[in-house]
């Protein structure tokens, strides 16, 4: 039993999606997260344990290696995909309420701004940290954030901006959210943003990178 969890952890850590996927070379021909998850469920391992003892720790290792510059994003994405294959099997249990994520994270790039590479990375890493993600895409105004919050009560919001002329829109979005859905926690990021700006517009936290976002969110969840 423990062995299966360990194998799953390894498959996700190294990005092995399923048996026929060629990547990574050293696991060629072996089962991927898809197959291992199916076996694990069959063996009666609880989905909550699968999530908490295999998937999340695997992604935590991936995140750590990434922040130590020991792997590149493509490798991280492979792991995310392996985790995704596993999650697909776990989906019914989420719906039934048998497992819970740490919470919901709503993320979007601010009104007027189309830069989303950074935002997508953050979304992926946060998902890997055990959160449900609602990705609103780019060019997102306050209404859409608020709507998403109404649909996901208690969710935490993340906003990204890459332009000096769109980061100011964050201010307006933050006030609207705080007014319409008080107590919402808002996390901001993106190249031109910094801590001073975060404080100025009344957002709750600024993180310079995905790892910072994950750490903050985990603190919120615990």
């Amino acid at each position, binding site marked *: 039993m423990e062995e299966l969890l360990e194998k799953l952890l390894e498959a996700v850590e190294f990005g092995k999606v399923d048996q026929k996927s060629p990547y990574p070379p050293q696991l060629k021909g072996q089962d991927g997260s898809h197959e291992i998850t199916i076996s694990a469920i069959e063996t009666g391992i609880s989905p909550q344990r699968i999530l908490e003892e295999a998937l999340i720790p695997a992604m935590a290792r991936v995140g750590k290696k990434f922040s130590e510059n020991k*792997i590149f994003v*493509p490798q991280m*994405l492979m792991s995310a995909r392996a985790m995704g294959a596993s999650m697909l099997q776990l989906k019914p249990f989420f719906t039934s309420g048998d497992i819970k994520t740490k919470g919901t994270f709503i993320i979007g790039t601010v009104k007027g701004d189309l830069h989303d590479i950074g935002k997508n990375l953050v979304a992926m890493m946060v998902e890997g940290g055990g959160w449900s993600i609602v990705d609103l895409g780019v060019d997102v105004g306050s209404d859409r954030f608020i709507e998403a919050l109404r649909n996901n009560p208690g969710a935490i919001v993340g906003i990204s901006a890459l332009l*000096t*002329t769109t980061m*100011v*829109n964050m201010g307006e979005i933050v006030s609207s959210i705080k007014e319409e859905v008080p107590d919402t926690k808002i996390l901001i990021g993106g190249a031109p943003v910094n801590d001073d700006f975060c404080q100025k517009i009344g957002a709750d936290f600024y993180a310079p990178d995905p790892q910072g976002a994950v750490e903050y969110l985990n603190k919120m969840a615990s």
Partner: protein
Amino acid sequence: MRYKSLIINNPEDLMFGIAPYPVKTRRGLEIGGGQVYAELNFTLPVMSINKNTLDRVYEHYREIAEGALERAVHLNSKGVVLEFETLLEMTKTPSIGVEIVKIMNEICENYYQKFGLASEIRLTPNDLREFERPAKQRTSGYLEPMMELFEKGMIAGGDLLSIESTGGKEVSDDALMNCDIKTIVFALAVLGVRDMRFLWKKIVSAANNHGKIAAGDSACGFGNTAMVLAEKKYIPKVFAALVRVISVVRSIVAIEEGAVGPDKDCAYEGPFLKAITGIPISMEGKTSACAHLSPIGNIASACCDLWSNESVQNIKLLSGMAPTAYMEQLEYDARLMNEALRAGKLHRNVLQQLLVASDVFTDPQALILSPKNVIRISKELVKGDSYVANARNGALVAIDIIEEALASGKMKLSEMETNYLPILRDDLESIPDNESDFVEMMLPLIDPGKFILAEYGL
């Protein structure tokens, strides 16, 4: 591809300040005619653009242009290009962009009349089409304001027309993050090429109507993005180097459609374009550290005709406004190259050699920019019958070059990097010569919801 051979075959002839086909401008710049000029780029500080702030926006651009030209005069500048890269609102509402061109052009004219300082404005509207997802490259309503800004901006005094068009970006963004070189080739050599042809026909004809200069298009969202990601250690440098090479076959289409240079700076495909087509180019390196960090600070200038800082906000440094400070830095860089050009062949060769040697083996992205390697890669980039084949061949020889540098011990790369080389080579080798074969091969692999084939005439 129209080009079948190189205009510059000898690495020694790939020299800063000298292009086979120089571009002469209204106020007397001769870009590529034996001088390197500074190209200053700038943007707004943190602020929004709306009715209430418009006056302040205009004031910023006035201050930028005045400060920069005043400094250029003070430093006996031989001439300056001001690049006005618009922000969303300035393209969506073209009258805003046009007004800014007018303001800056007046200042240019004033400095020309009063001090004889030659300067021109490069007008670079941002590509609005990507606001729709999936983007409608050909049928988008956004095309109209973009073209209106080009048209009226020319009349207002924009002499050099550029854009960083985004055809193919819908698929390349993910491909960059996945280190998926085949999709990069698809994005650039199929989608990018097709969109460039569509767009640049329009731009060139607009320019010709007004007697203005269709300058060029840099694959910023591809080459520059790859470099920024590699500098963050998000993707391998070897991969980023290949993206740059592949972007050449996309950016050359502007020239095939009639653009004459100076090519834009930010994807660094310029040296290849210069070798193949002979047009003058703009490049950016150490002095664009205000806009992004890079591994090619010196080598980037080895064959530039304009030398740019990519972009800096109009904020206060201790000396004065940042664009003024960057104007000064660019001028001194340009002065050094111009002095070498003046002093003669030995001097310019030595300077170029130092610029190249100081960076070349520190990073694969620098490596492929040495004049020798540029020529070698360029030869591959024109050998084949299709853009796809050329892109593939260029990238493959770039891998050869990287491997040779590693084998010689002159360049060192971590295993994390070198592990990617065989994978990238295999991927590239699987690409067929023929565009339609390649499209057939790729379509099943790409999320069809992401882009609209018809918008690329496919």
